């Protein structure tokens, strides 16, 4: 099995996961659910695409940059999702109608009543 073959497999799987993330963005009902799909799939999908670079070019300058990019994506992607969801909730965007619980809203209302 040549390393180029492994590269193509990783590339295809990565693109597939990125695609699932995009479908999730369209199909899921509210901003929080959409963020979930987008963060998870974009992280692993993009990481796999970057990892496939390693199998195409071998170990060198480009590979190291790609591996560093994976590390940065792993750190920044969930942080961004957290910041966006928190900001969305604080600016009053409601959860989907069929959501079962919202402890965050309950606790924040309690805190604001006291203040």
């Amino acid at each position: 099995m040549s390393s180029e073959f492994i590269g193509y497999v990783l590339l295809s799987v990565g693109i597939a996961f990125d695609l699932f993330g995009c479908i999730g963005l369209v199909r899921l009902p509210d901003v929080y659910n959409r963020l979930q799909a987008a963060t998870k799939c974009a992280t692993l999908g993009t990481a796999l695409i970057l990892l496939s670079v390693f199998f195409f070019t071998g170990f060198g300058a480009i590979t190291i940059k790609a591996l560093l990019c994976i590390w940065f994506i792993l750190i920044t992607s969930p942080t961004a999702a957290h910041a966006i969801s928190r900001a969305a909730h604080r600016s009053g965007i409601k959860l989907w109608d069929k959501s079962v619980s919202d402890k965050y809203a309950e606790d924040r209302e309690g805190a604001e009543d006291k203040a």
Partner: protein
Amino acid sequence: MKRFIHFLIIYAIWLLLTWSFTPQELLVGVVVALLAELLLGDIFPYEGVRVFHPRRFFWLFCYFWVFLWALIKANFDVAYRVLNLYLPIKPGIVKVRTKLKSDMGRTFLANSITLTPGTMTVDMIGDHLYIHWINVQSADIQKDTEIIVASFEKYLERIFE
């Protein structure tokens, strides 16, 4: 000492990013790393450096595989929910408690939760994390903590506490 370790880490990242070892590049790297350390060194938490202890590093290594497995499961979970015609979701925000005290440990915990199946950290107030869950199984703090937090916490406790 703390500042010197920061400097070395930043310089190592510079070397990896440029990947050329001509004298000019090395010299500019020293200047850039010094500047970055002087301007931003206070933000970087010192706890991060403790990870280089061999025992902590071993647990970090174990944690990496646990995390990777959770990330892969999360992606198949999203794929399953998104491609299913009936969209099997039952979303909601639940509250869990964490035992971790260090900033670095909590950051890792929150980011790990976001990248694992069906959960996303929305906010942290005191010892409580508010988590958006795509498939809520119970509304009880203890039970939710057990399901969402426990598997990561036991590793992060050994790495950062």
